[in-house]
C-alpha cells in the first residue's frame, strides 16, 4: 500500500550527467547497472551450467541403479567362451537386409513386452512363463537373428570381433569375458541373463526367472574387461612417467637452450621488453586481490585478539603497522599498473616514427577482437586439473552422509564466494547511487528500500519505511 502510494508521486530528478558515467536515477531506474545485470547473469549462467552437468550425471547414475536393459549390440559370437554363444550357430544362412530389419523390430517389440510383463508381475515364475512363451515364439526368430544382429549396419564386424572380448552383456561379463572357460562362474551360468537371448537356453539350463540385472544384487560380480584394464593401467603408468620427467627436470641442457631461445626471441623482437603483457597484468591484479583478502584476514585476526601482556600488545601493534605498510605498497603497485596501462593509451605523447603510427593502427586493428574475449587467466588456475601431473589422488569417504556433507559444504563455500563477490559489486554500484540522491522524493525511498534489501539482506527481506506524520 505504502509502496504503491509512494510510487505514484511524480518526481523530477535531474542529475547532471558527467562523462565518467555517473549513474542516473529516474524513478526506480538505475542508469549504470549494465555491469550489475551482467554479473548477475553471469552468476546465473554458471549455476545453470553446473546444474546441467549435475543432471547429466544424475541421469547416468539413476540409469545404472535401475535394472539394466539388455544392450542393443549383441554379444553372441561363435567362440567357446560364454555360454550364450553356444546357441548361436554361426553358419546360418544370411537373411536379406529387409528380413533382418523386420527381425530386429520384432525382437525389440518382444523385448519390450517382456520388460512390461516383468515390470508388472512380481514373482519370477510368471516372468519365466511369459518370457518362455514369448521366447518360444521368437526362438526361431532369435536363433536366426542372434548371430545376425551383428550384421546390423551400426556395428561393423571388425570392431565387433575386436571388442567382443571386451564388451557384451552383463551376463557374459559375469563369466569373466576374455576367459575361455567358465571356470568359477559355473553357478552363475545357470541363471539366465536379462533379455531374450536366454529363453532358448532357459529350457536347457536351469529354468530360473530371467531377472534383469541390477547393480544392487549382482554388482559385486562385475568385472572390467581386460582391454580396458590394460589401457587404464597403461594410462596411469604413462602419466606417472610423464610427471616424473617433469619434476626431475634433469635435462639442464634442454632447459638452458629453451631459456636461451626465449631470450633471443625477446632481443630480436620489436617490442620493448619492459612491458607487461595483458596476461601478466591480469595475473598481478589477481595476486593483489588475493593479497587484499589475506591482509584483511590477518587484520581481523589481530584486531580480535586480546593482548594479555605488553609484549603481545607491542607485537600486535607492529603487525598492524606492518600490514599497513604492505597495503600501501600494494596500492602503489596497483597505481603503477594502472598508470602503465592508461599512460600508453595517450596517443602522441611519445615521439613516433612515421611508419610506426601505421603499425600501431595495424596492430590495434588486429587486436580488435581482444575485447570480446574474456580473459580466462583468472579462472584458469584450477581449470580442471591443469596441473600436468599424475592421475588424481584419492579422497576417501566412509558413508553416504559424509559424502553428502562434503558435497554440501563445497557447494556452500562456492555459493558464499559468489555471494560475496556479488555483494561487493552491488556495493560498488548501488551505494554511490543512493547516497547522492536528494532523498525526499518517494521513488528514492522505494529505491532505498530496494537497495537496502539487496545489499543487507541478500534480497530476501525488506524493511519498512513509515512516514512520521504528526497525527493532526
Amino acid at each position, binding site marked *: 500500500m505504502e509502496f504503491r502510494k509512494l510510487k505514484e508521486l511524480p518526481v523530477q530528478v535531474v542529475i547532471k550527467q558527467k562523462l565518467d558515467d555517473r549513474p542516473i536515477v529516474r524513478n526506480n531506474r*538505475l*542508469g549504470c*547497472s549494465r*555491469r550489475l545485470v551482467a554479473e548477475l547473469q*553471469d552468476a*546465473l549462467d554458471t549455476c545453470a551450467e553446473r546444474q546441467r552437468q549435475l543432471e547429466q550425471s*544424475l541421469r547416468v547414475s539413476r540409469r545404472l541403479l535401475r535394472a539394466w536393459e539388455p544392450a542393443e*549390440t549383441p554379444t553372441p559370437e561363435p567362440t567357446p567362451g560364454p555360454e550364450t554363444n553356444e546357441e548361436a550357430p554361426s553358419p546360418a544362412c544370411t537373411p536379406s537386409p529387409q528380413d533382418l530389419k523386420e527381425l530386429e523390430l520384432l525382437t525389440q517389440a518382444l523385448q519390450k513386452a517382456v520388460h512390461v510383463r516383468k515390470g508388472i508381475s512380481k514373482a519370477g515364475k510368471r516372468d519365466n512363463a511369459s518370457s518362455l512363451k514369448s521366447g518360444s515364439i521368437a526362438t526361431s526368430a532369435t536363433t536366426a537373428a542372434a548371430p545376425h544382429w551383428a550384421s546390423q549396419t551400426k556395428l561393423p564386424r571388425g570392431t565387433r570381433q575386436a571388442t567382443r572380448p*571386451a*564388451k557384451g552383456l552383463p551376463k557374459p561379463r559375469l563369466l569373466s569375458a576374455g576367459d575361455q572357460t567358465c571356470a568359477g562362474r559355473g553357478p552363475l551360468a545357470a541363471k539366465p541373463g536379462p533379455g531374450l537371448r536366454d529363453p532358448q537356453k532357459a529350457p536347457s539350463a536351469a529354468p530360473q526367472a530371467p531377472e534383469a540385472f541390477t547393480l544392487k544384487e549382482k554388482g*559385486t560380480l*562385475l568385472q*572390467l*574387461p581386460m582391454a580396458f584394464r590394460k589401457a587404464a593401467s597403461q*594410462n596411469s603408468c604413462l602419466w606417472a612417467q*610423464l610427471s616424473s*620427467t617433469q619434476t626431475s627436470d634433469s*635435462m639442464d641442457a*634442454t632447459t638452458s637452450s629453451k631459456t636461451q*631461445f*626465449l631470450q*633471443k626471441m625477446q632481443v*630480436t*623482437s*620489436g617490442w*620493448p*621488453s619492459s612491458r607487461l*603483457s595483458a596476461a601478466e597484468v*591480469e595475473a598481478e591484479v589477481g595476486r593483489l586481490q588475493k593479497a587484499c583478502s589475506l591482509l584483511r*584476514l*590477518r*587484520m581481523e585476526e589481530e584486531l580480535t585478539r586480546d593482548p594479555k601482556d605488553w609484549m603481545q600488545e*607491542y607485537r600486535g601493534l*607492529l603487525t598492524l603497522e606492518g600490514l599497513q605498510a604492505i597495503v600501501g605498497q600494494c596500492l602503489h603497485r596497483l597505481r603503477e599498473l594502472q598508470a602503465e596501462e592508461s599512460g600508453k593509451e595517450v596517443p602522441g605523447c611519445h615521439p*613516433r616514427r612515421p611508419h610506426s603510427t601505421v*603499425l600501431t593502427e595495424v*596492430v*590495434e586493428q588486429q*587486436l*580488435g577482437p*581482444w*575485447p570480446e574475449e574474456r*580473459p*580466462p587467466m583468472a579462472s*584458469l588456475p*584450477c581449470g580442471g*586439473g*591443469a596441473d600436468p601431473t599424475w592421475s*588424481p589422488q584419492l*579422497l*576417501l*569417504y566412509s558413508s553416504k552422509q559424509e559424502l553428502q556433507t*562434503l558435497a554440501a*559444504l563445497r557447494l556452500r563455500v562456492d555459493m558464499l564466494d559468489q555471494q560475496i563477490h556479488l555483494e*561487493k559489486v552491488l556495493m*560498488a554500484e548501488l551505494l554511490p547511487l543512493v547516497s547522492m540522491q536528494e532523498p525526499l522524493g518517494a521513488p528514492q525511498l522505494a529505491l532505498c528500500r530496494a537497495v537496502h*534489501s539487496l545489499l543487507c539482506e541478500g534480497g530476501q527481506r525488506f*524493511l*519498512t*519505511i513509515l512516514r512520521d506524520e504528526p497525527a493532526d
Partner: protein
Amino acid sequence: MGVWAGGVGCGRFGPHRADPGSCEGRLVQLGRKCLRSGLDGRHSHAGAAAHWAGAGGVARPARGLGAGAAEAAPARGLGAGTRRGGARSFKARAGCMGRRRHLADAAGALPEAIAALSRSLPAGPSPEIFRRAKFDRPEAAPALWRLLFRVLSLLRADRASASRAPEAQARWVKAALRAQGYPRLGLARLPEDGSQGSRELLLALAWLLAREPLPERLLAQTRVRLGDEMPVCECGALASPGQPAPRVDTAGPVDVRRLQWLMGKLRFRWRNLMASQQEQCALLGKIHAYTRGCHGDRSLGHLSVAETELLRDPEGGRQLLQRLESENARLEAALEWRRRELVFWQWMDTVLGACPPEASQPTFPPRLRGRGRRAGAWGPVAWELQALQEELQAAVGARRAAWAARVGGQGPEWSAARQAAQEAVGRELAALRQAWARGGGRAQPHRPHRLVRTEAGGPGGPGLRAAEVIGVLRSREACLEEMLCQLQEQCRQQLARLAGALPGLIWIPPPRR
C-alpha cells in the same frame, strides 16, 4: 641426411663449427658419387632427411640428390641404426666424418622429435610442414595457423571459439598471443588469409613450447577421467572474479526490480543445485557400495560411475576405450618428445637466425584497445585496498596512542625484547607475502580427487580423508560467512546514516534471523 649434417656442420648447429665450404662440397660430391653408382635410396625418407638441410642454398640441390645423399648417410653408418650396416668404407672419406656423424645422428633425430611433438599435440601437422616453415614457405602457413588456434583455444579453455572462419581464427590467435606477451612484431603484421608467414608462426609455436610444458598441459586438460572426481582445492568454481563480457541486451537503464528478480532467481537455482547435489551423492554412494570388490586395483576397491557405465553400455565403453587408447598414444608421443627435444631447440636457434632482424620500436605503445572494458577491473581491487588502508590507519592510530600511554619507563631489556619482536613480526609478514607472491602457494590439494568409499574404521591407504576436508571446508565456510556479514553490516550502517539524514521517516529494519 648427410647434406643435413653438412649444413648443420656449417656453423648453424650446436657447438660444432666446421669450415663452411669444405663439408658441404664434400658431401655433395659424395652424394653425386652415390647417385652415379646407381644406388637407390629410400626416396621418401631420403628426400625428407635431405631436406632438413640448414642452409637454404643447399636445400635445392639436395632435392635432386635426395636419394643419393640419404643413401650415403646410411652407407656411412649415420642416421637410423637399422641402416648402420654397410659402408664403413665411406667413413674414411672425409676428415670431419666423426664429428659429422654425431651431428647427423642428431639431425636424424630431428624429424623424429618433431614427429613426436606433432603426435602429442592435437591437430599436429607433419614434420614436413615444420621444415617448410623454416624456409617460410607459404604452403605451411594454414596448418600452423590451425595448430596455434587449436592449442591456444585449449589453453584458454575457450569453447566459444571453436567454429570460426580462418580469418577470424588468425585474428584471434594474434590477439591471444599478444595478450600472453609474445614479443615479436612480425606476427602482428602477417596477413590473416593464411598465405604467408609460416616461419613467424613456427617461432610463435616454439615460444609457447619454451615457456611451459605445452603437450603435458593440453593432455591434462583433455584428460580421460575414469573416476568420480571431486575438486578439493579452494579456487571458487562459481565465483567469476574476472570482468564479465559486457552484454548489449540491456540497452537502457535497468529497473531495480529486475535486479531483485535476478537475485531471487539465483537463490532458487542455488536451492536446486543443493538438492540435485545431495541426490547425486546418495546415488554415488550406492553405486560405490554395490560394486565393492570389482576393481582390479585394490586401493580403489570399487567401480566408479564411468566404469560401471562402460559395463552397462558397450558402445559407450568402446568409445571410452578408444579415447583412452588415443590418450595413451599421445602420452607416449609426449614422453618421446621430452627425450628428444634438445635437437628441436638447437634447430629453432637456426630458424631464428634465419629471420631478418626486426626493426625495433623503442617508444611504441602497443596497448590493446578497449581499455575501458578493463577499467572496471581496477575498481574492486583499488576500492578494497583503500578501504583496508583506512581501517588499518584507524586501528594503528588507536593502538599507537594506547601504546604510547603505556610505555612509560621500561628498562634496558626492553630494547632487546623490542628487537626480537620486530624480527618475529617481520618474518611473519614476509611469510604472509609469500602466500600471494607465488602463483598458488598451496598446491597440494589442488587437483580433483577421485572418490573412494572405504570402511569407516579401516586404516585406509594413501589419500585424503573426507573428514579432514570437511573440517577445512567448515572453517572456510565460517570465514566466508563472517566476511559476508561484515559487508552487509557495512552497508547497513551506511544506509542507516543516510536514513538518519531524512527527517520525518521511520525506518523499521526487518527482523534479524
